């Protein structure tokens, strides 16, 4: 029995969790459906960030650049008459391409220089879209046509689209945690010279990681544009989005598969509760909480959680 559990326990747990999350959209009410859609959105963004920050060790504070790029590409394509699914696919590709084109130059920068450069990239893209005008709508933004679906069906559709993003992003991270490509990224992070001497093209590996991160984040941006129906530069290229995802990653645990999910769920649900109960104090309370987590469990919730679970297992074995 225990051997059986050991072998199939983890996949079973994942499968049942996936089923519950999938079915949830049919019994959640409108309010909680929106909350959980936003949670799933942040799970996807945080996992996307996990790829470049947790695995590659490059602190991309400006990943919002991909979110905005995805939102604008998807919105413009939908306006041009593309079906939603095609627009979402294309906007992920645009996100990946952006990372692949700029990566070789930007990923040459180390530490905080890279972080600052990504923030600058985000501002530059926002500025560009404001000034190009035309199809991008410039300062007016883009209003997309109303969906023909009923509100609840629309919310369910968006929920499922975000769930897809979160699931794919998590699968990518899971793949990184055990594949050869994942080893190449992690080796490059720990010792660049060591990795290169062992035959790893560290630049290419990093650029590819950023490409994955960009694709995931841009997809989420595309779904978000469809969700809120109206986009403008300020909310699409919002650095605080990356910062929030960064906090979730920090809280959950960088470089782990489950950590970012826990971080995103914990933070977003908590933020919603605090906001609904305390209103004006909400930022203060969250700020204090974030400081507490970072001070007391700097490697994220996942480490003490794992320890707790393995303790429980041992006790279970004894009893």
């Amino acid at each position, binding site marked *: 029995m225990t051997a059986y559990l050991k072998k199939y326990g983890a996949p079973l747990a994942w499968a049942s969790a996936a089923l519950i999350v999938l079915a949830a959209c049919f019994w959640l009410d409108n309010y909680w459906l929106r909350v959980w859609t936003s949670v799933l959105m942040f799970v996807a963004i945080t996992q996307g960030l996990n790829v470049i920050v947790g695995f590659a060790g490059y602190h991309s504070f400006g990943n919002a650049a991909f979110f905005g790029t995805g939102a604008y590409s998807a919105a413009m394509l939908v306006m041009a008459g593309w079906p939603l699914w095609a627009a979402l696919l294309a906007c992920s590709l645009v996100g990946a391409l952006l990372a692949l084109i700029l990566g070789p130059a930007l990923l040459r920068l180390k530490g905080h220089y890279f972080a600052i450069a990504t923030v600058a990239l985000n501002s530059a893209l926002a500025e560009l879209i404001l000034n190009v005008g035309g199809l991008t709508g410039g300062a007016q933004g883009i209003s997309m046509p109303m969906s023909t679906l009923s509100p609840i069906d629309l919310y369910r559709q968006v929920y499922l689209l975000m769930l897809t993003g979160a699931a794919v992003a998590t699968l990518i991270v899971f793949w990184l945690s055990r594949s050869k490509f994942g080893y190449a990224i992690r080796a490059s992070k*720990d010792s660049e010279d060591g*990795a290169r*001497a062992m035959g*790893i093209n560290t630049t290419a590996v990093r650029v590819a990681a950023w490409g994955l991160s960009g694709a995931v984040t841009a997809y989420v941006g595309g779904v978000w544009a469809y969700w809120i129906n109206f986009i403008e530069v300020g909310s699409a290229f919002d650095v605080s989005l990356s910062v929030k995802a960064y906090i979730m990653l920090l809280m959950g645990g960088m470089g782990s598969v489950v950590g970012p999910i826990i971080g995103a769920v914990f933070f977003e649900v908590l933020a919603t509760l605090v906001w609904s109960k305390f209103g004006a104090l909400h930022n203060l309370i969250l700020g204090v909480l974030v400081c507490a987590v970072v001070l007391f469990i700097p490697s994220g919730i996942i480490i003490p959680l794992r320890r707790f679970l393995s303790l429980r297992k041992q006790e279970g074995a004894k009893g």
Partner: protein
Amino acid sequence: MKPNLSLEIEGATVRFGGVVAVSEVSMTVDVGEVVGLIGPNGAGKTSLLNSISRLVPLSAGSVHVFGQNITKIAPYMLPRHGVARTFQVVQPFANLTLRENVAIAAMFSLKSLPKLEAMDRADAVLERTGLTHKAKMLPAEVTLADRKRLEVSRALAMTPKLLLLDEVMAGLNHTEMDAMIHLIRELQQEGTSIVVVEHVMKAIVAVCNRIIVMQNGKKIADGNPKSVLNDPTVVAAYLGQRYVDRQSKTQSASVSGVQK
């Protein structure tokens, strides 16, 4: 270049700003030969290895391995030319186990190996370097001597034809050092060409067919161990009179000599 050379360096010069770390050094290593590279601290030994493995650029000169010009190639291409190295300042992948560290070396070097085969190769190498019982530990959990052995293990996992060792004996005790000397001899018997950078003279004398001495970035001697170690310039620049006196007193070549 002669067909039986594994390494041929011509006029290599390495500059760091105003510092000339390596100055017009030329040297060769025959296939299957073990060449010692010695000299005082800051002589430029590590810089020369770094320029061979393309981690620092040459400002002048050229490097050929097994007849191929590698002066301009990307550093990650070196394993594909059969070259592996260790780092004097160890460069472990800190968040991965020793086994994974070694497996990564196997995975991406000569021919790209599937993950499971690379793990098997890693196990075989760790067995050979005596780290099997620590395979599941992280680099920070083992001693410095073990981390040095990890450096060697990773290089071996790449099945090199030319191996560059940078001070792998430093920090090892006598037993560990003897094991390392034994390992180097075995590798030579298998046909591997080796460059050994080392301050431990006992090890140099025990394994080298030839010795090259560097000082202030320049090559000051190159020849068979006996003649080089008795060369007055070498004694003056590096070994010191004490080494020579001790050698003649004990009549033995296996006294450990100059330490840093």
